[in-house]
């Protein structure tokens, strides 16, 4: 058989672009990330430091020196620190149980343990408030009741710490579990061979080795607490317990001549606290970082006789922290007036009908949020595939700066992004000559900036699983950059990118802290709706909206789980 050497390949017509498509894509990525994630933050810093165009330290000192700001800062740090301690204990215990022991029913338990992290914090707060209100339907069922007329027990610093601690425990859990899974089994087996008891092993070998993961988890919990608007606002405002984040929110409502620059200074302070927290934890975690080789085989320490009691405690904890508040929420959503007992006579679906059909504002909120989150997820997924491509295979200083900018915009509290966006987009856009402030577009811009890192992380996980030679093989097959992206790379990272899209979708749908400052009469999103309804006294309606949001979250989580076998491990946090 002879194969004549057809030289078609060299004669094939090619449009010779003066600049390669890679370059265009890089320029577009740079403009996007720098323009949306970085420039607004720069604008924020500028306004905070130089409100009138030149550095003004006296103004900075004046604002930061007020008693109000001092109290709010101390309060913020207190709730963040105490709730982090709580998260640390709960999260580490949970991770130890799941990663190291022979506890049964782990998959379901993990799903339920992570669930609170996926529920909007303001919905959780609402559920807890209703569960512990004097007229609580649930406590009533249990035969307990709180004295009527007294202050609500959760409207207090302890209440905020408790809820933040529970909300952030899954963050510590995920980080510690990942660290424990990387732990080489040989080290533990060597300890066992040396005769150490299981408890001793845990405290002298396993947990010290997982230290980096524990510190990283603590940092995440700390940062997340500082920036958690939903819980701090729902409990802190009625409790008259000011924190930085609620102070910023209240400043916006008191729109005065200097309100914007005051907000900028407070937002900067919040951002600085966050960055200090991350840096400190990063430093603590990396100190004496032990890198050991070995196979990361799953460990299964035997719980023995203690297994059943431990399992009972583990499940009881979930009932108390998840089932109890959520059932209060469901109950409230099914009665006509807040505080009514749920009986056949009081049962109604009126609240749901109102939320979905009658109240135009809520319906609009649903639709605005839906298209905003879908658009955000789609745009960011496309962007992440390209960004992750360059980050994985063509690292340059430029692309690393983009990565850093996206991580920064994710790490600092959403409300800071909100302030930055207001400052950046208040003036009319050049050329277009109109301001997007007060429209949905500014919310979209904030979402795109804030959630890029989430989508990017998941997609990077997908790239880590692809061998570079798959792309190179397509390259020698003659496929140009965009063609390879379409035919080879996109299909291969699709599962991870889709998981990222779902996580972005859920985060954006749940968020409140980014859009709370950006919503207007023309642009309402779902997240802040609950706060407004509850503030307006429509608790049952708020509960119905909250239940609908939890339902959406559950459906999304289960949908994503159904495709989990196509995904790299760890992309879906709620999977064991």
């Amino acid at each position: 058989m002879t194969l004549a050497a057809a030289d078609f390949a060299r004669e094939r017509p090619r449009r010779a672009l003066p600049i390669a498509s890679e370059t265009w894509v890089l320029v577009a990525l740079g403009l996007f990330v720098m323009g949306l994630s970085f420039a607004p933050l720069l604008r924020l810093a500028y306004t905070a430091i130089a409100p009138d165009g030149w550095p003004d330290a006296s103004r900075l000192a004046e604002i930061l020196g007020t008693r109000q700001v001092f109290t709010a800062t101390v309060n913020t740090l207190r709730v963040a620190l105490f709730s982090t301690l709580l998260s640390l204990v709960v999260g580490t215990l949970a991770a130890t149980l799941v990663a190291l022991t022979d506890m049964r029913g782990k998959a379901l338990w993990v799903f339920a343990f992570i669930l609170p992290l996926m529920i909007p914090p303001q919905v959780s707060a609402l559920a807890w408030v209703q569960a512990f209100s004097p007229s609580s339907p649930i406590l009533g069922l249990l035969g307990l009741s709180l004295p009527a007329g007294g202050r609500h027990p959760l409207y207090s610093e302890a209440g905020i710490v408790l809820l933040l601690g529970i909300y952030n425990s899954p963050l510590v859990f995920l980080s510690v579990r990942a660290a424990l899974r990387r732990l080489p089994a040989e080290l533990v087996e060597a300890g066992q061979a040396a005769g150490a008891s299981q408890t001793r092993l845990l405290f002298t070998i396993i947990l010290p080795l997982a230290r980096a993961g524990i510190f990283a988890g603590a940092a995440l919990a700390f940062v997340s607490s500082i920036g958690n608007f939903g819980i701090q606002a729902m409990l802190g405002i009625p409790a008259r317990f000011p924190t930085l984040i609620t102070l910023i929110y209240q400043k916006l409502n008191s729109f005065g001549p200097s309100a914007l620059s005051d907000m900028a200074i407070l937002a900067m302070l919040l951002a600085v606290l966050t960055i200090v927290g991350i840096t400190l934890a990063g430093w603590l975690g990396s100190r004496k970082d032990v890198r050991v080789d070995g196979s990361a085989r799953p460990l299964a320490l035997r719980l023995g006789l203690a297994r059943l009691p431990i399992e009972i405690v583990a499940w009881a904890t979930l009932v108390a922290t998840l089932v109890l508040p959520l059932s209060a929420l469901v109950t409230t959503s099914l009665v006509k007036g807040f505080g009514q007992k749920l009986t056949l006579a009081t049962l109604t679906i009126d609240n749901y009908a109102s939320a979905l059909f009658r109240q135009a504002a809520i319906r609009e909120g649903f639709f605005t949020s839906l298209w905003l989150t879908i658009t955000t997820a789609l745009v960011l997924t496309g962007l992440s595939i390209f960004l992750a491509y360059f980050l994985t295979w063509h690292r340059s200083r430029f692309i690393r700066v983009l990565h850093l900018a996206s991580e920064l915009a994710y790490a600092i509290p959403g409300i800071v992004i909100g302030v930055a966006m207001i400052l950046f987009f208040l003036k009319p856009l050049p050329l277009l000559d109109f301001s997007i402030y007060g429209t949905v577009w500014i919310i979209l811009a904030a979402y795109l900036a804030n959630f890029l890192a989430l989508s990017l992380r998941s997609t990077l996980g997908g790239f880590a699983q692809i061998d570079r030679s798959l792309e190179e093989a397509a390259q020698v097959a003659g496929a140009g950059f965009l063609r390879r992206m379409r035919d080879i790379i996109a299909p291969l990272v699709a599962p991870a990118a889709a998981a990222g899209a779902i996580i972005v979708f859920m985060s954006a749908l749940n968020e409140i802290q980014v859009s709370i400052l950006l919503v207007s009469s023309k642009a309402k999103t779902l997240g802040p709706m609950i706060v407004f309804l509850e503030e307006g006294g429509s608790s049952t309606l708020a509960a119905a909206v909250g239940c609908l949001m939890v339902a959406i979250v559950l459906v999304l989580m289960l949908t994503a789980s159904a495709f989990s076998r196509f995904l790299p491990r760890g992309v879906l946090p709620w999977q064991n």
Partner: protein
Amino acid sequence: MADIAISGLGKAFGANRVLTDVSMHIRSGEFIAVLGPSGCGKTTLLRLIAGFERPDTGHVAFAGQTVSSTAHHTPPEKRDLGIVFQNYALWPHMTVAENVGYSLKVVGLSTDERKRRVSEALKTVALTDFADRRPSDLSGGQRQRVALSRCLAARNAIVLLDEPLANLDVHLRAAMEDEFTRFHQASGSTMVYITHDQSEAMTLADRVAVMDAGRLVQFAAPATLYREPATEMVAAFIGEGIVVPAEDIVANGDGSARAAVLGVPVSLRCASGEGARKRARIGLHPQDIRIAGAGETGMPARIKRLSYRGGGFRAEAVCEAAPQTILAFDLPEQAPIAPGALVSLAIGDGWVIPAAA
């Protein structure tokens, strides 16, 4: 068809100089092997030829057209070459037929023509029945053949192979070596085959380029490498080579020379330019060493080890005069020699390694 001209190629990653001044000319349709120990820069050379890396110095030309130089770089997708990757790099989301036909699709060939070429290529590697399978359903050897037929269908003028047998079981290798030879005959491509296994290189290639620490040390036919190694490294690397010191070398002018090896006069081969030298190194193979016959002067050596090699023994002996040099040679099965015995060894042939330039 395309020849490959490489000249003065150099590449460093940071402070790590990986390739230094590599020049070679690969003729159109030739099958060459690049041979060298792991880490000597073979893969880097292949990636430079393919265009995945850019050279620091020198240039590469295909069929007279410069594709890589410090000033010009043709991207890999425009070089019209095929690569068989060590891990085969088959796209898992495509069927075997789609894998094989992808480059044709990229070029925009009509569906009919594409189908014809794909089935032709699959027939050549005997995988017609597997056209609709996914790569994950194939064995290692079958994946290898898909990777080959991908180059076959594309009719690449140049095919680069990077240690294609490294991931296969030993018993599959011989069969795959035949596959490469058939592929070469069928395609007529210029082939560059990278390996660290000298027997693979010697079996397959028309010529072998031996590399050491980023430099090309010898580029010649297998028999030449075996009989006339250019350096000590080549002499030791090829065919279980042994390098021994020699003294008082006198060339006869006809390609033969006389010298004293470990005190015993022997007759050797040498390069035509060779004159008289006080000291030199000699390249030998086990086949050149035997027990000295009666009346023959041999060098006294002690047997250190005997290992059975099916049909005979491989003996390792050491001369008192040069205790570091292990002289390996073959003994028939009936040989009544035990380890520790003193023997007298004769050297039948050897090559005077040219003085380093």
